[in-house]
């Protein structure tokens, strides 16, 4: 499987089916928020619980997709994507906190008797600047880290461990109260976004639609990338970097581009996640979360565009169900899943489906 699956699949007989299923899923996703606007008690009404749950999973799906771009296509396993996700979330959270506190300081600052906002909070009361931060903060961090890492040709395991150290350091930093992001409580108790009440059903529906839109856009972007020459260079980079260099390509630029792109996608996903879930705190940066994201990708099938989405959906869906039905056995199940997938499904669920399709 040297070519991305979607490319292969679209060359074979599959595209009609893939497209059909995709269209149905998309329709359902678009229908969900509209159904949630129905009056309570209506038989078709979708509850806020379902909506936020699916919205959360969709945000995770975007992270999985972003991770897949760097891991599945460029062969760089990042164990630090939670950091970019959380930074995007924090940038949005800063705006929401300002919106909730009006002219005063956010609640956690008054509580520490801070009299004025730290410099990095300047301008966060404007939604536009917050949006810029959502893109810029994870993007710049990724750019700087990537620039140095790729310049010294750090790859493979080293790269994974370094990204893990990065997110761990980030978590410790954000845990500090003095850092000015609410310490381990992070940000909660948001009230409104752009003047709309955050708990209103319509606000939820719009946020959900935006998440779907971002997901579709990232899918499209990924698809274009995968089909382009750029995508092939990336795949070549993953499979034989040295040969690619001998062919006269400089891999650094390619890596850096896809790395930063992936970080920005994560940041955007984080920004959509925070208002839907209602909390952002440093535990999002814990190395465990980032490893879990890698599992979504591996489970779904890396190097494909659909796989990560499937993986994120499956694992999180299972988590939501299992933690209710058998709380004590959830970790056994998750652990077994990791092992079985790596042993028997090296190409993930998508690989399995594809095999069946070929038979």
């Amino acid at each position, binding site marked *: 499987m040297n070519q991305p699956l979607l490319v292969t699949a679209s060359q074979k007989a599959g595209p009609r089916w893939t497209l059909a299923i995709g269209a149905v899923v998309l329709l359902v996703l678009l229908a969900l928020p509209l159904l949630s606007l129905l009056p309570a008690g209506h038989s078709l009404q979708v509850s806020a619980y379902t909506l936020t749950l699916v919205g959360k999973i969709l945000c995770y799906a975007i992270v999985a997709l972003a991770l897949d771009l760097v891991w599945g296509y460029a062969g760089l396993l990042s164990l630090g994507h939670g950091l970019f996700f959380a930074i995007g979330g924090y940038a949005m959270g800063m705006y929401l906190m300002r919106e909730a506190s009006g002219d005063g300081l956010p609640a956690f600052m008054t509580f520490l008797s801070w009299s004025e906002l730290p410099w990095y909070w300047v301008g966060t009361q404007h939604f536009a600047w917050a949006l810029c931060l959502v893109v810029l903060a994870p993007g710049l961090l990724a750019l700087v880290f990537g620039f140095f890492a790729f310049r010294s040709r750090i790859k493979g395991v080293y790269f994974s461990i370094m990204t*893990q150290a990065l997110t761990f350091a980030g978590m410790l930093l954000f845990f500090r109260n003095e850092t000015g992001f609410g310490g381990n409580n992070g940000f909660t108790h948001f009230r409104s976004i752009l003047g709309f009440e955050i708990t209103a059903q319509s606000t939820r529906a719009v946020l959900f639609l935006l998440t779907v839109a971002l997901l579709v856009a990232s899918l499209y972007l990924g698809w274009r990338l995968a089909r382009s020459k750029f995508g092939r260079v990336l795949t070549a980079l993953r499979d034989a970097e040295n040969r690619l260099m001998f062919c006269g390509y400089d891999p650094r630029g390619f890596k850096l581009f896809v790395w930063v792109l992936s970080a920005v996608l994560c940041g955007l996903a984080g920004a959509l996640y925070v208002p839907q879930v209602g909390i952002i705190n440093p535990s999002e940066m814990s190395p465990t979360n980032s490893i879990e994201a890698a599992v979504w990708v591996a489970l779904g099938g890396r190097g494909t565009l659909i796989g990560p989405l499937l993986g994120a959906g499956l694992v999180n869906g299972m988590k939501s169900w299992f933690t209710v039905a058998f709380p004590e056995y959830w970790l056994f199940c998750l652990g*077994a899943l990791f092992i079985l997938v790596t042993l028997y499904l090296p190409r993930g669920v998508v690989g399995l489906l594809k095999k069946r399709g070929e038979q």
Partner: protein
Amino acid sequence: MPKALQRLFLGLLLLLPLAAQAADADYFIAAKANEQARLLQDWAAQPDPARLELLSSLQQGRIAPDDTRNLRLNNRLRGLVDNALASHQLLSADAEVRLAAAQQLQKSAQPAQVAFLDRRFASEADAAVHAALGLALANLQLVDSDPAVRLAAVRLLGETGDPMARTRLQALLEPGVESNAGVRTAAETSLAQVKRKLLFGELLGQAFSGLSLGSILLLAALGLAITFGLLGVINMAHGEMLMLGAYATYVVQILVQRYAPGAIEFYPLIALPVAFAVSAGVGMLLERTVIRHLYGRPLETLLATWGISLILIQAIRLLFGAQNVEVANPAWLSGGLQVLPNLVLPYSRLVIIAFALFVVLLTWLLLNRTRLGLNVRAVTQNRNMAACCGVPTGRVDMLAFGLGSGIAGLGGVALSQIGNVGPDLGQSYIIDSFLVVVLGGVGQLAGSLWAAFGLGIANKLLEPQIGAVLGKILILALIILFIQKRPQGLFALKGRVID
């Protein structure tokens, strides 16, 4: 008749101390806390050998060795008991008891005891006790009315490296306290002297804590240096091997307590082989069932071993409960060695440093001086070539993985002696372990050694300056920067291998 009276009188006299003691005890137990405190202070100023037994019982929290009456002492009273007991022990015939008592009095003596201490000081024959008493006395004489006495006391305090001396001298030098210019200058010189000594002790202490932290990092990372460094398995379950070792220690402790209570002092030594066997066994089992299928796919070993670690954690949680379990330090690992007045080296840490070096040596010998080691190195360098030469690569993999896990188990025994033993024990060491191995250079035992001690010392040098939290963050940032400079770690394998 007079004779009989005389006898009775003598007998009463002999009984008097006993009676006095019983009366003291009864009076003490009936008194309110404030009265008890006053009593203890009085006793400390005027020691009476008859009260020795009462005071030593009080120190144990009882009225008398065989009296089970409930005695409510608080920390203040305990401190006063210690002080009064020391006062009484100065009357002991044993010079060592007197020395310990004099040292206690250096910390706790009260102005009311000056007269008594003065008398003991004058009559003390043993040189060491004499000197110790002199210091205890000097502490109190700083406020003496006679400038000559104060001067002598100040000079004497300058000789010690006692942190309390610094505070006392500083208090003396506060404006308006000491009027005599001679004493002031002497106090200034003494203070400078004490500060120098204290600084020396502090620096030594920092160096030691760095070494100690390094040895713990080393023990945590050494197993990983084999499973990850040599076999190339990104073993996220490494932390759980440490945890298994620690739980093995716990189980051994319980079994020894139940079946061989006499050997309880040495249970950590018994735990060493058990922990090694348990972790190595689990490690080999995992290698055979899971990891074997994943060689050459390092990133996937990461996911699979992460899954294994989740299962192991939850299994332990179900078996032993989510709470931490109690692993006690035996007496020979409790307490510490007083090197300088402000420097105590805990025995447990000293033992762990030695143990870490011992394990490194053992591993080095195993890898470089045995057939197994040769085979492991051969497989690491070129699996196919080794197989062609008749090395049973499968078996070697299993044994090497078992060895790495077993060493982690040994690390677990050591960790159980200084920290928590709980299901999450491994999680807190896994990132540090990876950083040590990566920083040292994958596949390099010596690299891990230097990296562990380097990190430990750097961490301990930074901590007093910027605090533990920022220190940790800074260390992580420095490692990331360092790896940019030397992507292969401190000790890189030399060669022109390219993928």
